[in-house]
Each structure stands twice: as structure tokens, then as C-alpha cells.
């Protein structure tokens, strides 16, 4: 780890500085700014966690909402009995365990079959949980009354987001990351070169799911009221997928490059075209695909590349 830090001291220092500045936002920002950042962080963390597994292995998952919802429900159930931080950690653990079980049974599916299976999983969990609540508790709603402040939620989500990005980057630099990418390129070849593909896939799938559950649990601290349709709202799955594809799912910082502009864009559109929001957003998607091929990451990389080339060129002449 230290070795890695030393090799990338520039970017590490920049990240630490950025994180320090972001942590100070609550001192200056209004509650609106905090709310906006909270939504931003949630999207970035989810998209990064999604791409950590799905981007590298190319197993496109639509189960984000399922794990997100598991986190919300775990918090809603636990916060009555234990302290809030414990309930939040509990949510991450439950998310991890659920993903282990799911992973064991599903990761032999590939391509579109896996995609639609994970979508079905979200719906199934939603339906069964709803059924359970009605049969056992005679209600489908739960109330979460806490006095956690916006500032606490802000700082927690900032920490979660940073840890997710840095963790995702760290893993990409070690053996586990190489194994993940090998699976994405060709699973059979990976297996023949001695990668225990099943263990790698399930471990990473569960890690990614635990972040999703964690984010759900933290966000749920702001909802006084939840039910299954809020917790398992599958627009989260699509939104995260699109943010990651837009940014570029191949790098640790790629999904953030998609999620941030997407959240800001919808913030702008929701205000400027409240009655034509979906038309405007749809047109933006289409425009992005045709004019920004390869996502925003590729754009940035190309820019950096040309910068480097220009510098090299100048050095040559000087």
C-alpha cells in the first residue's frame, strides 16, 4: 500500500487535499448545498461500487436497487434496537451476506441472462418482503425517526464515497484486481491461468453489494417513512448503470465522472424544464452517446494524452 502511495504521490496528495476541502463544505454551504452533495455522493458511491464489480468483470448487474433496499430495510428494523452507527454497519454486513448467497447461485449466468436475472431478483425481493410485512406486521410501511443531522449524513457519505473510490482503485492495483479484469476479458482463460474465478467473483460482488447497502442505510436516515416500493425502486439500478457507462466503467474514478455531471444535469433540468424533464434528459443521453463515445473518461484521457504529447514535443524542441 505504501509503495503504491509513493508511486502515485501526486494524485494521492490531490485526493487528500480535495477530501479535506469537501469535508469543510458544511461550514459554508446552505442546507440545500448539503442536500445536493448528499445526492451526489450517494450516486458516486453507488456507481463506483457497481463498476468495481460489473465494470471489471462485465457482469452487468441490475441488482443495485436490491442491495440498496436491503440496506434501507436493515436500518429501519435495527435502528429501533441498536444505536444508529451500529445499524448502519449492520446494513453493510447484511448486504454482504445477501450478496454472498445470491452470488453463489447466479454467477454462472452470463451476458443478458445475468442482467435480466438481477433485475428479476430486485422485483422478487421486493414482492416477497412486501408479502412478509403484510402477513406478519399487517402494514407495509416503517417509520424511521432519528435526529441525525444533515451534516453527519454529509460527512458519513463523503467518507463512504472516498473509501469506495480509493478502495476500488487500490484493488485494481493488486492481484485481486488483475483477477477481476482477467475474468472480464475471458473467464475460461482466467480459470486456466489459476484464478479461482468463483471465489473472486463472489467476494467482489459481495463487497460491492455491501457498499450499496451502506449507502441505502445512510440515505434512509433522512426518510421518516419507507416501504418496499421506495426501498426497491429500480430506477436506482438504471441510474447507476447509466452513470457508470457514461463516465467509463473501466477505471476507479470513471463512474464518478459520469455520476457528477448526471446529477448536476438533472438538477438543472428539473428546475429549468420541470414539465419536460424526461424529454430533455433523454435527448441528452442520445447526444452524449453520439458526441462523447467511450464516456467521459476517454475524453479526459485523450485530453491528458494530448497535453503530455504537447509537453513531450516542446521538450524535444527545447
Amino acid at each position, binding site marked *: 500500500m505504501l509503495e503504491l502511495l509513493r508511486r502515485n504521490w501526486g494524485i494521492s496528495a490531490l485526493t487528500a487535499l480535495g477530501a479535506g476541502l469537501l469535508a469543510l463544505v458544511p461550514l459554508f454551504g446552505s442546507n440545500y448545498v448539503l442536500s445536493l452533495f448528499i445526492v451526489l455522493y450517494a450516486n458516486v458511491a453507488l456507481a463506483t461500487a457497481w463498476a468495481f464489480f460489473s465494470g471489471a468483470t462485465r457482469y452487468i448487474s441490475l441488482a443495485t436497487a436490491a442491495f440498496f433496499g436491503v440496506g434501507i430495510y436493515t436500518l429501519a428494523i435495527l435502528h429501533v434496537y441498536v444505536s444508529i452507527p451500529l445499524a448502519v454497519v449492520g446494513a453493510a454486513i447484511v448486504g454482504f451476506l445477501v450478496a454472498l448467497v445470491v452470488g453463489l447461485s447466479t454467477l454462472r449466468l452470463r451476458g443478458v441472462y445475468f442482467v435480466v436475472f438481477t433485475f428479476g431478483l430486485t422485483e*422478487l425481493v421486493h*414482492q416477497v418482503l412486501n*408479502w412478509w410485512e403484510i402477513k406478519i406486521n399487517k402494514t407495509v410501511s416503517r417509520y424511521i425517526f432519528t435526529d441525525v443531522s444533515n451534516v453527519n449524513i454529509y460527512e458519513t457519505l463523503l467518507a463512504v464515497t472516498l473509501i469506495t473510490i480509493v478502495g476500488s482503485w487500490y484493488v485494481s492495483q493488486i492481484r485481486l484486481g488483475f483477477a477481476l479484469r482477467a475474468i472480464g476479458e475471458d473467464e475460461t482463460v482466467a480459470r486456466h491461468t489459476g484464478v479461482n474465478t468463483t471465489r473472486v467473483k463472489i467476494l467482489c460482488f459481495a463487497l460491492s453489494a455491501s457498499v450499496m447497502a451502506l449507502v441505502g442505510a445512510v440515505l434512509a436516515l433522512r426518510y421518516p417513512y419507507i416501504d418496499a416500493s421506495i426501498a426497491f425502486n429500480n430506477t436506482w439500478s*438504471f441510474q447507476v448503470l*447509466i452513470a457508470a457507462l457514461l463516465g467509463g466503467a473501466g477505471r476507479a474514478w470513471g463512474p464518478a465522472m459520469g455520476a457528477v455531471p448526471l446529477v448536476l444535469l438533472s438538477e438543472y433540468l428539473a428546475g429549468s424544464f420541470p*414539465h419536460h424533464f424526461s424529454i430533455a*434528459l*433523454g435527448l441528452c443521453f442520445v447526444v452524449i452517446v453520439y458526441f462523447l463515445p467511450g464516456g467521459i473518461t476517454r475524453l479526459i484521457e485523450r485530453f491528458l494524452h494530448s497535453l503530455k504529447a504537447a509537453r513531450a514535443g516542446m521538450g524535444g524542441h527545447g
Partner: protein
Amino acid sequence: MILFEVFLGGLLLGGMYGLIALGLNLQYGVARILNLSYGEFFMGGAFTAFFTIMLWKLNPLLSLFVSLPIAFVINWLIYQYLMIPLVRRAADQDALDADVVLVTFGLFFVFQGLALVNWSGDLRGYSFLSSPVHLVGATVAFNRLFAFLAACALAFALFLVLRYTRFGTALRAMTIDPVAASLVGIDVRKFSALAFAAGGALAAASGMLVSTFISFSSTIGVEYTLKALIVVILAGVGRVTGTLAAGLVLGVVESVGGYLVDPQLTIAINFGLFMLVLLLRPTGLFTRA
């Protein structure tokens, strides 16, 4: 006796599932484009039928003369001018899929938004063939029976086209291996465009038929895209004729299971069955292993 009627109802419901999925399987199986705006053409077909009967007081079946050509042309244009550039520039299938998901998701937003602005978001429904039909002691709704028969007829017609025409042979060849198909002189792009357009027209037709017994609004599309996708995956991508059969299985299990276990679990049973099949046969029910 009730059980028989429930079974029959499930069969009709399954016909509907098969019906809505036929076009998607044509688009995804043959043209290899996963069109997330598929359901918007379903919605368009339903609205055209609604306006035909409620505004112009005509038989809603006549609406097909309007909605089918429009859906066909729009889908052909989508393939020709939006998809082909993506196909051309894509490095591999994964890259193409990512682009296609983004673009068709964008189109879904645009079409739904346009429908919301122009047709408002009100829930719509009309009565057409809403009379009981008695079959061997059981009662079914005429409109559901009609949609079921139409689904069977369409699936059969599709089967004949695929089996016995030059066009159909080309499509089947492309489903199995697009590269080989182009090597033997099949104009893959042209036939893909036609299959894609025909799939969109089928979506509109199914929207018209389903709207006779299910109420709908401008945001209904995505729900049917996803329903159709489940059926397509269950049947096996590209298994156009297996689509109806997969739909029937889903419908019967959902109805009978819901009746025997708990009506609240119908949707859960539906997804549970789908997932179970996938785990046992990872590429669908009607594919050759």
C-alpha cells in the same frame, strides 16, 4: 371447476405475455439490438386504439391501419439512422450493448415525455368485446380470448414466414450467425432493419390488443418492455416461435400458483419461476442446449 377456469385464465394471460414479447424477440434476437424503448410503441398502439374508439367512435381494430405503419417506419428509421452508426463504430458486442442501452433508454425518456405532454398522464381505458364467453363450463372475457387468438395467429404467421420464405431463411441464418450470414450474401443490415421495424410494429399491435382489457397511461411503456424482456429471456434470445410457449408457461404458473398459494404472490411467482428456469437452463427454455 374453478381451477380449470383459473388455468384457462392463466393460458389467456400467457397469450398476452407471449404477444407483447414477440416483437422484442424479433428486435433483440434477429437485429441484436436490445431496445429499451420497445414498450413506448406498445403504449402508442394502446393510445391510438383508445382515441379511435373514444374520440372517433370507430372500431379500435381499425387503429392498426394507423399505428402499425407508423411504428414500422419509426423503428426502421431508428435502426437505420441511430443504430447503424453505433454498430459500425463498436469494437465489440459489449461496447455496442453499452451504447445501445444508453441510446434506447434516452429514446424511452423522449417518447414517454412526448406522450405525457401531448396525451397527459390520465389513466385510460375503454370497453371493447368486454362480454363473457363460456367455454366448457368456464367463463372468460371475450377481449382476452381475442388477444390470445391473435397472439396464436401472429406467432403462427411468424413461424410460417421464418420457415418458408427467403426472407425468413435469411433471418434465421442471421440469428444463428450474423457473420456467416453476410458471407453467404445476405444483406444483414437491410434484413436487420426490416426485422427491427417489424418488431416495433408488433409492439404497437400488442398494445392495441392488450388495451382492450387493461387500463393504461403514458408511462406504461417501460413496464411492458421489462415484462417482454423476461419472456424473451425465458424463451431464449432469438427463439421467436418459442416466445409464445414461454409466455403461456409464465401465465399458467402465475395464475394457478397465485390461486393455490396466495394471490398476493402472483408477481413473485412469476419472477421466481423465471429465475429458477434461468438457473437450471441458463440460456432459456427453448434453446437447443
